[in-house]
């Protein structure tokens, strides 16, 4: 065939036109997607955890239990395969940069409630090859899209807080509190973590741990809100009290603050 420019353009043009022809078929039905009118909205969600009140075992246990049952978290009973969204660390493990040789033993062993920090510059998002984990630009939540996760575990290597867990096996038989059917479980081979209860925010509720901790430990045990709004409760608390964040020198800018 004559390999002229004219012929090339003709064939390419026909091909492109043909391909475009098929697209409207998929989009034929009128489709609109809306966010729920009840949804809680913010420019930047953040959390402030009262360390003293969360030193109480029953308050931390209530927060963790609420999260576990809300999200079908399995209890595998194997430390290496543990799946955790919110859990307890000792002070020296949670805040290694805040500990020196004079730190009293009692302080080192102080239990601290930890969860995903929903960083402003999340390293897990930078390394994810499929964008299965991503930062929601509208409110700063670091989300997981389980449908896209290929289980490479780069994010687990990247996260300096150990906030991510891999499913080494089908978690369903290990959901000991009973599977709730209004929230999906996970499958073997994906990484999971705290999503700041995106599904609860969408129906106008606070994250499960916040409600549970404030119920048992009293209002203000966990303050949750919009730090982009200077008049929100959390903004006022953060301005008025001394806070620490986990490993701030790494530059991830965690958005979970600990009130001293």
């Amino acid at each position, binding site marked *: 065939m004559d390999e002229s420019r004219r012929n090339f353009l003709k064939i390419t043009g026909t091909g492109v036109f043909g391909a475009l022809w098929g697209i409207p078929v998929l989009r034929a*039905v009128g*489709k*609109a*997607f*809306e*966010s729920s009118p009840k949804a809680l909205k913010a420019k930047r969600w953040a959390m402030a955890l009262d360390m003293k009140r969360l030193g109480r075992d029953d308050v931390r246990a209530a927060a963790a239990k609420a999260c576990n049952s809300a999200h079908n978290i399995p209890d595998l009973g194997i430390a290496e395969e543990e799946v955790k969204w919110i859990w307890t660390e000792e002070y020296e493990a949670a805040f290694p940069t805040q500990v020196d040789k004079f730190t009293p033993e009692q302080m080192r062993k102080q239990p601290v409630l930890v969860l995903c920090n929903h960083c402003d510059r999340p390293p897990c998002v930078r390394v994810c090859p499929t964008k299965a984990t991503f930062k929601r630009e509208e409110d700063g939540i670091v989300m997981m899209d389980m449908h896209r996760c290929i289980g490479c575990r780069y994010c687990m290597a990247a996260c300096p807080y150990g906030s991510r867990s891999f499913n080494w096996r089908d978690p369903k038989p290990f959901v000991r509190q009973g599977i709730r059917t*209004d*929230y*999906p479980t*996970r499958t073997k081979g994906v990484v999971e973590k705290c999503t700041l209860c995106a599904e609860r925010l969408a129906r106008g509720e606070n994250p499960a741990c916040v409600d549970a901790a404030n119920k048992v430990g009293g209002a203000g045990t966990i303050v949750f809100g919009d730090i982009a709004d200077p008049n929100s409760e959390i903004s006022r608390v953060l301005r008025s009290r001394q806070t620490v964040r986990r490993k701030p020198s790494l530059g991830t800018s965690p958005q979970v603050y600990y009130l001293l």
Partner: protein
Amino acid sequence: MYDTGKILAGLVAFIVVATFPLWFTNLFGSPSARPVLELPKGEKKCVEDTEYMRHWHMNMLDQWRNEVVREGKRMYVSSDGRKFEMSLNKNCLKCHESRAKFCDRCHNYMAVDPYCWDCHVTPTGE
């Protein structure tokens, strides 16, 4: 040409054998049993009309999951203006409560094996 008769007979025999699946099913076969779905009892109309759902539900569910997980939008406005929560568990499976009597019947017939059920558990625990 030598052996015309034998060659022609051979050709005819070959065509008869090679096209066996075509003429045999047309002459003697009975149509295979089409899947019969158990439809929801209370509800008459799905989010879109039946024909559309039959052909495009998989694309729709793909789009729903992207809107919900990635865009944070959870309400679907159908072509006739009704609103639904885009949730497999809380919307679709509320009416189509039995996976075995609805989803699986077609999926098995078509020999497709979607992995929705690896994570999403139906209200009846399937």
